[in-house]
């Protein structure tokens, strides 16, 4: 959308190296000074079904995808079928020559419901029955088609390396696609080689072979397609050090910084990546000496949440990470932690729901669930990050909230962030602090007199961890007295309920506004957008585009969803004329929560629930409709494949 920007997509069957190719592509662009945002889409499948990676490369920071594809690299016929319509005029499609002859009816992985819709499209356009017919039609839109004999190129590589079995090199089709892409873009070969080495290991044989394949493809494209592609990607000056950060990495890093030393988990998509990443990095440096995080794969999510609680009782900063189905199993444990004032952190990676839903796709369906999960009433904090940087700092801060207010903290993130990568300049960690709240040691307790649930004005009791000398304590899921022993007395019950719930008020009062909300744009603009979580990037970019067209908007990103900073929300809502919420669910959960807490209703709802993250393009178009007074009250966005 801006001048020096490129949208590159690579797609193919799962297991064919799409991920590796995108990793190389992203790194190579990063070395050349580009910012990027990339999202990964995949089926709940290991091998064979369609997957793709959509990169947005720009000279300035980018925070979301757009609808356009400038250059599409297709490993297979399905990728062409699914994505060719996203390619912009003057854009390009790199494809396997042989795929042009493929009949649509022979693509076995196309789901029936897709094929039926696609058939209607073909008939309406008068397109024939092969991929070649579709490609010919696309050419009318002035799209450049680059057919490549991938197999022949692979044979060349195999011959040159004396490899007899072609199957040993077929996986390198991905590097060939990279080679063709970068050749068309006329990009610096050295940077790509560096990226290949970074991905496969500096001195590895595999890196060598991949570099050979890359060069072969690069030269092939140079000779065959010359200078026909209009987009060029020139090397920029890299002014500062940058990182590429995936959402799950950001959370893992934040946890370590925040002092998390025990993580439990049960495998689930897309949350498990975080725990595996932590386990792979279990040993790390401290300012003095070494540190470690114990990562425990449990038998189920019930064990995961309760083990984390056990560890927290013993004094460790402990967390678990899960997604919707797993959190459902954790709910009883959450209630126990709430009742027993246990400082645990749950990283909740939302995905398309209900039930198993869309296991590998995106959604923000679980806001209300996290706020209300658990039988009975007990305090908890629900925190939602809007990008990878927030994921990092919020993950660290979640433990401070948990320990200061002695309650479970649910850190809500989503698939869009978990599996997307974004470039950042290095974070400034100098202001990071660990606050453990009212934690007491042996010198603070008189032997035999410690009361774990002592009544206090703030509701927060001095907390000794298990094993503190002189302090013996009891916990129970039953209602209990100050000592932690079972009590069913009505008077004590009231005091305890009020003590626990008081902590939520204390948290609400003490946590500074800047940690709970972000405001962007014009405070006195006539249009105010409210949202939470990962739509942040697309909203900000859409606002920027609209600003350049003369439309001013304000954007209140709510990061603390419970307790809701309602006073600030009311203040912002009262200043504005048109109120819009943007979120990835069917019912407008944030909107309804705001209405419930403030009595104010939204004018427009922009929603999406097809499992694919919002793009800047579609949010921009939806806003524009509102600004022009042409929008229905409820707009449902549908982009994505």
């Amino acid at each position, binding site marked *: 959308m801006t001048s020096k920007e490129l949208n590159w997509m690579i797609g193919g069957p799962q297991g064919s190296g799409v991920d590796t190719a995108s990793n190389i592509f992203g790194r190579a662009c*990063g070395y050349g000074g580009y910012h990027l945002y990339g999202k990964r889409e995949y089926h709940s499948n290991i091998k064979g079904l369609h997957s793709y990676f959509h990169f947005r490369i720009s000279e300035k920071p980018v925070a979301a995808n757009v609808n356009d594809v400038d250059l599409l690299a297709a490993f297979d016929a399905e990728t062409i079928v699914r994505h060719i319509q996203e390619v912009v005029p003057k854009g390009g499609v790199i494809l396997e020559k042989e795929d042009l002859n493929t009949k649509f009816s022979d693509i076995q992985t196309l789901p029936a419901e897709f094929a039926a819709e696609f058939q209607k499209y073909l008939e309406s356009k008068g397109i024939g029955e092969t991929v070649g017919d579709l490609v010919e039609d696309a050419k009318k839109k002035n799209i450049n088609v680059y057919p490549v004999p991938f197999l022949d190129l692979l044979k060349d590589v195999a011959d040159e390396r004396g490899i007899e079995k072609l199957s040993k090199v077929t996986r390198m089709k991905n590097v060939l696609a990279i080679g063709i892409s970068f050749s068309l873009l006329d990009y610096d070969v050295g940077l790509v080689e560096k990226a290949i080495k970074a991905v496969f290991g500096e001195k590895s044989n595999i890196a060598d072979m991949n570099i050979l394949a890359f060069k072969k493809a690069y030269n092939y494209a140079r000779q065959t397609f010359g200078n026909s592609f209009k987009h060029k990607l020139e090397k920029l000056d890299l002014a500062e050090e940058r990182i590429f950060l995936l959402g799950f990495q950001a959370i893992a*890093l934040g946890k*370590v910084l925040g*002092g998390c030393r025990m993580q439990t988990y049960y495998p689930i998509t897309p949350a498990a990546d975080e725990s595996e990443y932590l386990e792979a990095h279990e040993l790390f440096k401290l300012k003095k000496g070494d540190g470690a995080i114990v990562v425990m794969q449990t038998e189920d999510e019930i064990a995961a949440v309760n083990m984390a609680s056990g560890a927290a009782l013993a004094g460790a900063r402990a967390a678990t990470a899960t997604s919707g189905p797993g959190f459902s199993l954790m709910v009883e444990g959450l209630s126990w932690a709430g009742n027993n004032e246990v400082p645990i952190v749950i990283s909740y990676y939302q995905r398309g729901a209900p039930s198993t839903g869309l296991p590998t796709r995106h959604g923000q369906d679980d806001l209300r669930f996290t706020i209300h999960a658990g039988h009975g009433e007990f305090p908890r904090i629900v925190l939602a990050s809007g990008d990878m940087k927030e994921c990092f700092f919020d993950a660290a801060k979640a433990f401070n909230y948990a320990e200061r207010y002695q309650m479970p903290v649910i850190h809500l993130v989503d698939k869009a962030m978990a599996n997307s990568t974004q470039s950042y300049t290095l974070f400034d960690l100098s202001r990071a602090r660990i606050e453990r709240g009212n934690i007491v040691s042996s010198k603070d307790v008189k032997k035999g007199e410690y009361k774990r649930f002592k009544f206090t004005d703030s509701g927060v009791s001095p907390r000794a961890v298990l094993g503190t*000398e002189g302090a013996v304590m*009891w916990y129970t*899921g039953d209602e209990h007295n100050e000592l932690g022993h079972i009590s069913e007395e009505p008077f004590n019950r009231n005091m305890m309920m009020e003590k626990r719930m008081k902590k939520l008020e204390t948290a609400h009062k003490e946590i500074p506004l800047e940690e709970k909300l972000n405001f962007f744009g014009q405070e006195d603009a006539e249009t105010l957008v409210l949202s939470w979580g990962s739509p942040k990037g697309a909203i900000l970019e859409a606002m920027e585009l609209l600003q350049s067209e003369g439309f001013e908007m304000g954007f209140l990103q709510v990061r603390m969803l419970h307790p809701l900073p309602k006073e600030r929300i009311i203040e912002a809502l009262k200043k504005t004329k048109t109120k819009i919420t943007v979120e990835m669910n069917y019912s407008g959960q944030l909107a309804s929560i705001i209405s419930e807490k403030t009595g104010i209703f939204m004018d427009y709802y922009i929603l999406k629930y097809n499992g694919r993250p919002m793009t800047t393009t579609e949010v921009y178009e939806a806003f524009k409709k509102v600004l022009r007074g042409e929008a229905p009250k409820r707009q449902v966005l549908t982009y994505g494949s």
Partner: protein
Amino acid sequence: MALKISDYRTPLFADWCPGCGDFGIHTSIQMALAELQLEPQTVVVVSGIGCSGKTPHFTYANGVHTLHGRTLPFATGIKLANPDLEVIAAGGDGDGLGIGAGHFVNAGRRNLDMTYIIHDNAVYGLTKGQASPTLRLGMQTKSLPKPNINSALNPIALALAAGYTFIARSYAYDVRHMKNILVQAIEHKGMAFVNVQQPCPTYNNINTKDWYSGRVYKLEETGWDPVVKNLDEELDKTVAAIRKSREWGDKIPIGVFYKNELVPTYEERISKRIPFYTKKPPAKQQIRDETGTPTAVMDEWFKELKV
């Protein structure tokens, strides 16, 4: 000053039914703690839900009364975070072998150095006498509307299959025997399981005190050798213990069925990866300095992500 048995008793009224086996188990726990002279603050008694769940409240030591079936996950979390704590989990048969059976099995696979006691009375007491997983097929205890339609599982054999490295059975009315077993269980290096046969005078009118007396006999008095001394013996001792565990009826063996300290504990397994784990477990790591600044150095982590 030496700790006495009564030092491990809270002043709370123990509200179990008169004659309940829980009294015996509770007494044995106190006796074992006193014999081992364990400081109350270093001990954590973890329980689940049911009559047995109240055990920690009557015990003067740290007590964590958890959720139904979740005794072992909480205990595991506590032990992993601070392996210096002496963790004793105690729960009912329904808790550990019904709703919590998955945890029972997986705790065996880990072999953490802690103790797990199952109060086995074949009924769900606190919900008024339904059949537990250890009630035999066809039995109709007092409050069952129909005879039990499920077969009983064999906790000893299940523990063997799951990998527990100390497996014993005791009897709630023989507190001295149980104390001895518990002392061994606590001192055992690895995951110890003690299944306690326990009459429920209110709901189990079949396996009563009278029923047990005369049937129960002590393995140690028969020359039974449960200890796996080298890996060659492992299979034979396991098979022998399974065979022994099926002895039920006129004769019911109690005592240690199986003991194997050759299997590395979970703590040892972690220590292979985190060499300082036992010195600096999760609960004891310095996570901040005096200014509250995190001690973790993030440079290496970010370096890996640099472009």
